[in-house]
Every structure is written in structure tokens, then in C-alpha cells.
């Protein structure tokens, strides 16, 4: 599996490097806020994954790749390993490197950057969950169909989920009152505030270690479900 990841790294490394640089520039610029940084980080991890499939499609390397001495299941598992590695790397880059760096660089100025202290566990959990959701929605379609058809189906499904989620939030909001949290002081009209309020309440009830473990556990379950779908889809795939 590592050989496949290495192959993908060699193919996509310049795209990843460019995307990483854009994030660094975005995060350390003075108007960044932690919510945008979190969302941007999730998009970065997804863009890295998307680039691998996009390059494979553009270079038409799929047939050559499929002719290598590999079982189909190994190819699929390697892509999930890659997705997990990209999410981890993007997370470490954003929360572990760029935020402290931005804070250090801008400490002496009057501007107020997104900071390490503002990166509370809720945002880390939000990052992990969003990145995972994007990956687990995208990968089964890519493995069952080619890049073009897979991406269109992913787009429609993602749009459908967002629409249903927004609708549910509106409907349940009339009956279920989620306790207000510190996030509401920012921009209460943002639709992401609902999930954030849920996350903060969960965090308060579970404590930080259990809360983060629960987020990672949920992501692992989602990954396993998507992996099963991808394995079944790729077994039927023709080139």
C-alpha cells in the first residue's frame, strides 16, 4: 500500500505543495478567523485527495496502474490510507504549525490573527469531521465510476446532504433548543453554528480527551463503511 501512496505522492506532490502554500498564506494573513481556518483546512485535505484522482484522469494512467501487480482491494485500501494521511497532515499543518507561526509573526502588530488559543477542541473536531465527511462521500464514487462521472455524483450527493441538513436544522430548531454557547457571539447566522453548538455541548459533557476520541472514533466508523462500499464498487469497475 505504501508503494501506491509513494506513486501518488510523486504524481501530486507539486499540487499538494501549492495548496499547502496557499493555506499558509491564508492562515497567517490578519483577517483570518478560526472558523474560516478550520473550513479552509478541511478543504485543503480534500483538495489534496481530489488532485490525485484528477491527475490520474488527466494523464490517463488508470489502465497502466490497473496493469501493475496489485490486487484491487490493495489499491482501494491504499487510497483510504492516503486520505487519512492527508487529513492528518492538513490538520497538523493548520493547527500545529501555521496557527502558532501566524501568532508569532503577528504578535507584535495591532492586528488580531486566528490564534492557537482560539483553536479549541470543537474546531479540531469540526475539522476532522468535515474532512472525513468529504473523503468518505468522494471515495466510493471515485472507485465505482471514473473521475468525471464520480465527481458529478459526489457533487450532487454533497449538495443533497447540505440541503437536507439545512432543512433539518430549520425544522428541528423550532422544537429543539440547543443551549447557546460562546460561538454565538461571533456570527449566529452562519449555518455551521448549529453543529458547533452541539460540539461545544458535547465537549462540556464529555471532557476534552473523550470528546476528541469520540470524534476520531466516529470518523473511523465512517471510513470503514465507505471502504466497504469502495471495495465493492472497485471490484465491479472496468477500465
Amino acid at each position, binding site marked *: 500500500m505504501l508503494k501506491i501512496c509513494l506513486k501518488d505522492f510523486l504524481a501530486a506532490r507539486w499540487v499538494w505543495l501549492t495548496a499547502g502554500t496557499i493555506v499558509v498564506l491564508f492562515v497567517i494573513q490578519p483577517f483570518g478567523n478560526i472558523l474560516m481556518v478550520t473550513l479552509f483546512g478541511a478543504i485543503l485535505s480534500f483538495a489534496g485527495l481530489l488532485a490525485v484522482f484528477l491527475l490520474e484522469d488527466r494523464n490517463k494512467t488508470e489502465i497502466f496502474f490497473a*496493469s501493475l*501487480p*496489485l490486487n484491487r482491494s490493495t489499491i482501494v485500501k491504499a487510497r483510504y490510507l492516503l486520505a487519512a494521511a492527508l487529513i492528518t497532515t492538513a490538520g497538523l499543518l493548520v493547527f500545529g504549525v501555521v496557527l502558532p507561526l501566524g501568532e508569532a509573526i503577528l504578535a507584535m502588530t495591532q492586528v488580531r490573527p486566528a490564534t492557537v488559543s482560539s483553536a479549541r477542541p470543537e474546531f479540531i473536531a469540526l475539522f476532522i469531521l468535515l474532512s472525513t465527511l468529504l473523503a468518505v462521500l468522494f471515495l466510493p464514487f471515485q472507485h465505482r465510476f471514473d473521475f468525471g462521472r464520480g465527481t458529478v455524483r459526489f457533487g450532487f450527493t454533497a449538495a443533497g446532504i447540505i440541503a437536507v441538513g439545512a432543512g433539518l436544522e430549520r425544522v428541528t430548531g423550532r422544537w429543539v433548543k440547543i443551549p447557546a454557547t460562546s460561538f454565538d457571539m461571533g456570527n449566529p447566522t452562519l449555518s455551521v453554528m448549529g453543529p458547533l453548538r452541539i460540539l461545544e455541548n458535547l465537549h462540556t459533557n464529555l471532557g476534552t480527551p473523550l470528546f476528541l476520541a469520540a470524534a476520531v472514533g466516529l470518523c473511523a466508523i465512517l471510513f470503514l463503511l465507505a471502504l466497504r462500499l469502495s471495495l465493492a464498487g472497485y471490484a465491479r469497475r472496468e477500465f
Partner: protein
Amino acid sequence: MTNALEIRNLRKTYKGFALKDVSFDLPQGTIMGLVGPNGAGKTTIIKSILNIVRRDAGEILIYGQDNRSEEKAVKTRIGFVHETPGLVEDAPLKNIAAAVAPFYPSWDAGLFKRLVGEFELPLEKKFKKLSHGMKMKFALSLALAHDADLLILDEPTSGLDPVFRREFLARLSAFIQDEGKAVLFSTHITTDLERIADFITLIRDGEIMFSAPKDDILGSWAVVKGGPELLRDDYRGLFRGIRKRDFGVQALTDNAAETRRRLGREAVVENAGLEDIMFYLTKGNGHA
């Protein structure tokens, strides 16, 4: 000795096209030309061998191993070259080779270096900067450097200039000097096959028309030229295809000796080339 490749009753159905019970053997130490018009099913057969399309029925054995249940082991023994090699366009050749090599336990770095030198391939150059001929040579180098036993080539010479083509074919002939190796080579350039193939398999509309040693085919098939008397019912059984022309009738027979004996001076019987055979068998009966 086990055949390098055995295909038995292979079936694959698409909308508007089907492979119908395709069967043939490729012995070790030989080159087989898989020939047929565009859309006949050559590429589908090759993709089925590589298990990149899923067969509906039948059996494909490579050196006695099933290509599905033993997929990894089988693919280790196969070298594949596609008509338009799909490799990372923006990567230098040395990086592509570095990415491919770890997949093959038998990758021979020394042999790869020799091939690169022989083919004058610029390892620092990006793949997209190569000409079509150089791309084919690089793809062939990758296929040969892991000591493949069975080379599968899908239309490898189309788009190559005659000098490149000769060089390419010479390399294939050298490859099978090792008796355990074999080459399956799909093409519609019949002169290439006349030059190097030991066996010819002709496919039309997903059906194998014949699969036999080239010398047997060229020795027994003939083009018959004569007048309208060739259309007589007692002669028709001799022919596999008949074309009526303004100045007479031309036909193809797979029994040149019998045709010469029966027609005597009534017609001219000339040895058929592969192109003649392909033309008559794929165009069938008609007027030209």
C-alpha cells in the same frame, strides 16, 4: 510445456458488442499477432487478460495460473504496453521508473539502465516532452526491466515511423530468444506480423476466425482470380470470401492446393498475404 497464455470460451458482452467464446493458445517462445479491424474485440481480449475488464464467462490462464484468482502473481509476469502509454505527463522519466520499480520484485535496475541507453532515452526529461516513438520505447523499457515472461502489446506500432517500428520489432524478436517468454501483439498493420509473428489470430465482430501458425496460414490461403465461373455452386465451397469486381471475380480460399487442383487453368491462384486474408474475411462477400 505449459502455454504462456490459454484462453478458453471467453465471453464479454457490452451494449452492441460481444466477445463470443473466444479461445486460443499462445505457446512459450513465440510471438502471436492478434489482428482484426477496429472494434473487432482485440483490446477487450487484452483488457480481459489483464483483468481490467471483468469477463462474463470463460477461463484465462497465464503460465497455468488463473488471471483472476492469482491476479497479483500473474501480473508480475506480464509486461504491458498500451498504444498510447498513460504515464504521469509532468514527471521526468527517472521519477516514473522510480515509482514503478517497487511494484516488481524482479525489477532489474541494470537492465533498465541498459535499455535506456540502447533506446537513447533522456531520463531527466519529462514524459510529456517525448515524441510518440520515444514514449513507446520508454513504456517498453518499463515492461522489459521487470523481467516479464509475457509481453502484451496493444497496437504498439501504430503511429510509429518505419525506423522506430523496425527497431521495436527487432527488440520483440530478441525478447523471445529466451524460450520461456512470449509476446501477444495486437495490431492492424499486417506487415509487422509477416515480419515477426509465429502465430496469427484473426478476430472479427468478437469472434475468432482462426488462430494458427503464420506459416500454415500463408502456405494454405490463397487469392483466386478468375471470371464469373468462380461463382458456380460447385466452386463456392472452396472459398471463404468472394468479391465481384467489374473485370471479374476474386475470392479467398484456405485450401490453396485443392483450389489449384480443381480450378486448374480456369483461374489464377496466388499466395495470400495477411492483408488479403483480413480484407476478405472482414469485408465478407460483396462487390468492389
